[in-house]
Structures are given as C-alpha cells and as structure tokens.
C-alpha cells in the first residue's frame, strides 16, 4: 500500500472513519451495482458532466495543459483520458451505441478494477481546471472529477486525509481539529509577536459582536503565522470592527473536494449560523483557494436560508483600501525579489486576479510576473487536497509540482537563494513549503497578506 495493480493511491479511510462522516461503506459485491446507480443519478442532475461525457472529440488540447500529465507522463492523466475512465462506463450503460456495440465504441463493463482506477486517477487530478480553460468545447473536466469523487465517497472510498478533515469540520468547525482554547491561545501569542516585531498593539477578537466576521484558514494557526498576523494588522490599521468566529475557523471547505452533497453543505450552514449569532454585517474570507471558490460560487445555492451578508475576499478589501489611498505602505520593507503563484481557484473560478497584483505591487519592491499566469496559471500540484505524505504519494506530489517549479525558476527570483514565492492559498502553501526544497528553488513561500502586513507604515 498504497498501490493497486501498479496504480498509486492515497491511503484510504477505514470503514469506521467513513461512518464518522456518515457513510456506511458499500461491500465489494455490491459496489459495481451501486456505482452505476449513483452515476445514473449524477448524470441526470449535472449537465456539465453530461457535456463532458457526450461532447469530447479527443482533440488532445488538454494534454499539455495538465501539470499532472506533464509531471507523470501517465496517459491516464491526460484529462480526456481521465474522463474516459468514467465515460466508457457511461457509454456502456447509458447510451444506445454502447449498449449495442460495447467495446467496438469504447464502452466497457464496470468492475472493481475500474472503481480502483477512479480512486487512483481522480485523486491525481487537482481540479485546477486549466484543461477546461484550454478545451475548445468548454468541457470542464473538473466536473468529471467531482462526480467521480462523489461516487467514490458514497461507496465508502475516500482518502484518510479528506475523511479526517470532514470529521474535524463537523466536530470543531475547522480542518485541523483546533478547539477554541487553542485558537485563543494562538491568537494571543500572535498579538505578542506583532508587538515584539512591529511595535503595534493588534488584538484578535474572538466571538465578539462586530461588523466584519473574518474567516481565516485553520492552517494559518499552525503553519502560517504571518498570514494571520497580516490580516489582524490590516483590520487594526483600518480601524475595523471585526471578529473571528470560534465555530468556523476555516476558510476551506473540503466538502467541495469529495462530498458536495453533505460535507460541503454542512459547513455552509455552520458559517451562516455564526454570522447570524454574532450579528455581523459582512463576511471576509482569508487566504484559501478552493475555499474561496466554495464560498463565492457555491454558498448562494447551498445556503439553507437567504444570505443577508456580503461575502468578500480579504484581498478585494485590501485592494480597495490601496486604490483609495487609505493605506500607507512602504514596499522597501519587502526588498527581496518576489513572484506570484496565482492559485487556480482564485484565477479560474473567482476572478481574483488583478486585485492580487494591486496588493503585491504596493507591498514589495521587486515583483516579477511568472509566465504563464492569471487564468493560465499552472497548479502548485497540491490542489484539491493532494497533500498526501505517504512515500508513494509524496513522490507523486514532487512530479505534480514539477511544472510549477520550472516556472518559478524561469522568473529568476530564487537565483540568489533569497527569493519569495507568494502563494496566497493554504493548500498551495502546504504543498509548496516542502516542494520548493525538493526542487531547490531558492525561494521562501509566503502568503500575500504576510507581505502587506510587513509593508504597513503605522502612525
């Protein structure tokens, strides 16, 4: 483990862990039948999925646009071929030609091997949607991965990492199992750190009545101190009435990545409960790519009530304050060369592109664009929670980040070993911290609000 007939697979959740996230795993002898039933339900529900099943002409434009294929050279990682793993089943059971002519038209009977193939390949796709950007038909292969992962979840096949995160979200409202006392202790520690380093008093209100509810990524509490510090410094600088809700210290929503039907909805409900309880006027989102997609694009349809609060991203807020000259910034406080990694979900799902540049240009001296960038950005290789660290999957992560490494190197920011790779997303950070070492890029990984916080000039 974790290998199945020469395919890499992430370590999977045990049956007991699946029950924690409300799934009774389907026994092997019923899996095929159940998978078909779920596939039938999904195809009737999602036209985006049917479009991918019916319209692809195998032109191959997606191949060279997929960092997973470029890094692994495994033909099954070409987006259209990955979709084919499910398309051949779709054809066999849900199309006339497939039912009549079977293999002659590329249809295939479902089997346990096929399901295991789904598990391997749908968890090598990072749902980054660069292939969708390149597809002349507008097929969004990410929708196929969504369907594949959802069916696997219902069958009881989910990576241990994702299952643990799902259970933690329900238990404490964040991905890392961080309870309120730990949240408060960490924030008090960061207040002291800010005082020591920047000489300003920055309180982090928790569960206080306020106008702004700030949703940080829980990884910031363990790994990304300057991301939390930067956000706190920004809110303090503008004199905001703000608070962090202890019940939702999570900008991410792994439900988007493996179970949109329950896990993702549950976290939306939790968020809206917190906003209602604290009586806030606005919700501001922290640095998390998939989580911002889940918030901006999915909350309106997943909410179980009218959403009365505007939901904005921290960097949209900061960019507004910069454009209106309300922040005094000294870029010289960030003198090292910096390049920006556009998180896929910001760039291709949320149009959070130019505001990132407004913030970075105002905060650093030497900003160098990576090419390609913006909506043509390549994924860090960890997208959709491919952060597995068992030896086989870790090796795969190195391959999946190879394209990004090549692009970072081409900017020259790490040439003297003192570059900064700005990656304003927690999954990107968690992936890139070790990967910049593996690829010897000579850069340090930082968030964007980290740089902004450092550049603030206090009165």
């Amino acid at each position, binding site marked *: *483990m974790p290998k199945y007939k020469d395919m890499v697979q992430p*370590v999977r959740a*045990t049956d007991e862990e699946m029950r924690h996230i409300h799934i009774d795993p389907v026994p092997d002898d019923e899996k095929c039948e159940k998978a078909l039933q779920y596939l039938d339900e999904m195809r009737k529900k999602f036209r985006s999925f049917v479009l991918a099943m019916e319209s692809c002409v195998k032109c191959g434009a997606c191949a060279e646009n997929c960092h997973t294929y470029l890094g692994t050279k495994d033909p099954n990682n070409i987006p259209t071929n990955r979709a084919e793993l499910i398309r051949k089943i779709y054809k066999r059971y849900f199309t006339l030609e497939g039912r009549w002519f079977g293999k002659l038209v590329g249809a295939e009977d479902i089997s346990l091997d096929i399901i295991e193939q789904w598990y391997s390949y749908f968890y090598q796709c990072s749902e980054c949607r660069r292939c969708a950007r390149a597809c002349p038909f507008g097929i969004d292969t990410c929708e196929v991965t969504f369907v594949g992962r959802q069916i696997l979840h219902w069958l009881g096949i989910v990576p*241990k*990492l994702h299952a*643990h*995160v799902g259970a*933690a979200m329900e238990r404490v409202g*964040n*991905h*890392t*199992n*961080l*309870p309120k*006392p*730990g949240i408060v*202790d*960490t924030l008090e*520690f960061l207040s002291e*750190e800010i005082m020591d380093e920047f000489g300003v008093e920055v309180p982090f209100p928790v569960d206080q009545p306020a106008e702004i509810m700030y949703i940080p*990524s*829980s*990884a910031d*509490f*363990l*790994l990304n*101190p300057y991301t939390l510090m930067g956000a706190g410094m920004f809110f303090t600088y503008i004199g905001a009435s703000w608070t962090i809700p202890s019940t939702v210290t999570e900008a*991410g929503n792994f439900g988007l990545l493996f179970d949109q039907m329950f896990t993702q909805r549950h976290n939306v409900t939790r968020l809206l409960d917190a906003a209602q309880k604290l009586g806030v006027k606005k919700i501001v989102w922290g640095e*998390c790519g998939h989580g911002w997609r889940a918030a901006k694009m999915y909350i309106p349809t997943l909410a179980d009530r009218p959403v009365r609060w505007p939901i904005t991203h921290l960097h949209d807020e900061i960019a507004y304050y910069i454009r209106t000259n309300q922040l005094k910034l000294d870029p010289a406080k960030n003198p090292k060369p910096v390049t920006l990694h556009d998180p896929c979900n910001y760039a291709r799902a949320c149009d959070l592109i130019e505001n990132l540049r407004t913030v970075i240009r105002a905060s650093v001296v030497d900003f160098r664009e990576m090419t390609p960038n913006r909506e043509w950005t390549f994924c860090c290789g960890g997208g959709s*929670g491919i*952060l597995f*660290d*068992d030896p086989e999957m870790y090796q795969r992560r190195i391959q999946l980040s190879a394209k990004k490494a090549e692009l970072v190197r081409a900017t020259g920011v790490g040439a003297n070993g003192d570059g900064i790779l700005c990656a304003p997303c*927690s*999954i990107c*950070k*968690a992936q890139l911290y070790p990967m910049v070492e593996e690829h010897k890029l000579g850069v340090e990984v930082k968030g964007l609000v980290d740089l902004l916080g450092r550049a603030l000039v206090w009165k």
Partner: protein
Amino acid sequence: MPSINVNGVEIEIDEDGFIVDPDQWNEDVAKYFAQVEGINELTDDHWKVINYLRDYYKQFQIAPMIRKLCKETGCSLKYIYELFPTGPAKGACKLAGLPKPTGCV
C-alpha cells in the same frame, strides 16, 4: 489496525505510525519511535521539545503553532529538523504521542 509492542504492551498505531490513543504514551514509546525515525539517542533537547508538545496538547488538545514551539523551546525550525529529521509535525508529534496533524499542513 497495526500495533507495536513496547515492553510487552501492545499499542495501536495508525497507517502513518502515530499512536491511536495518546494516553498509552510513555517515555519508552518515545524511545521506540526514535529508533523508527532513525534518531540514535534522545538528548535533553529532544525531551524539551517532546515535553513541550505533550504539555501543550494536554492543555489545548492540539499541537502548538510551529512558531510558538520554536519560541518556547528556544529551538529554531532548522534545529528541530536536525533533532527530528521528518520535521515537527510528522516527527516530533509522533514521538510525543500526539495524533497526526490533519488539514492543509
């Protein structure tokens, strides 16, 4: 579920080699994991990190922010990697009997 045998006591571990029940931890368990992690000898600095992690976990049911761990123990991150080659989360937490950190870490 796999298990390890330390001084005749069977202790359950998960697929990543972390102990399942933090209450089953004792110093011999830490020494056992040290061998697994390729650490020849547990020095005072190792114990300082392990004990800090255990105390923090007892109080807050979570591992501390890495920056806080460094500050409170006086060990730089680089030094912690020297002490625990697989790092603070996967190495030090394992020896201290904490659950494996989850999420985007």
